[in-house]
């Protein structure tokens, strides 16, 4: 069963605008959430994480918001740049050391 869901397989945004990538989860025991970015033929690259005790974490152009009551998190990229075009994976940890990943959202930033 898919415990981490990214319901939008793709998203297209104009350069300079905000990109919002969404992620929903079902397991209330998740204590850490992470976002990874993946370019073709490369492994995923860690982007940003958030602990379940926080509701926001910011790193430069990237901000992750966590809404525990809605079991929802989102990644905001402001301003979006063409180099941000990639597949973005949402991931979460419940216990142990395995991460549960979503299926990814392909972001295209157009000039």
């Amino acid at each position: 069963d898919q415990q981490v869901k990214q319901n939008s397989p793709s998203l297209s945004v104009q350069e300079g605008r905000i990109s919002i990538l969404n992620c929903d989860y079902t397991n209330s025991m998740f204590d850490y959430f992470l976002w990874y970015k993946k370019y073709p033929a490369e492994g995923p690259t860690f982007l940003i994480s958030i602990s379940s005790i926080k509701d926001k974490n910011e790193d430069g152009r990237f901000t992750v918001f966590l809404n525990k009551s809605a079991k929802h998190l989102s990644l905001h990229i402001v301003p979006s740049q063409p180099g941000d075009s990639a597949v973005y994976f949402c991931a979460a940890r419940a216990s142990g050391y395995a991460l549960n990943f979503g299926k990814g959202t392909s972001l295209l930033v157009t000039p």
Partner: protein
Amino acid sequence: GAGVSQSPSNKVTEKGKDVELRCDPISGHTALYWYRQSLGQGLEFLIYFQGNSAPDKSGLPSDRFSAERTGGSVSTLTIQRTQQEDSAVYLCASSLEAGLAYMGYGYTFGSGTRLTVV
């Protein structure tokens, strides 16, 4: 090395053959993980090694899959009697230690091995 190295980058094998996939983690990283990504799916956890502790094999899909990590460094994932459903990208990742993998550090992934079973 500078990053996580995986070999081969591509492997085509006939159904029923055994394959070995290799992962060379970042020097000094004590935790090593194997994931796989089947077409149209998210990454699926397979197995985790931490130092000399017994590995967490809870994600291995069947007893045809096994992995070992020699000397706390290089790891080999072996798939016996491959089936077409084993076709996927197999990704290896490492981290300084498992407890840091979530607190702002994440894993470092290799580029993966694309396995095709024909």
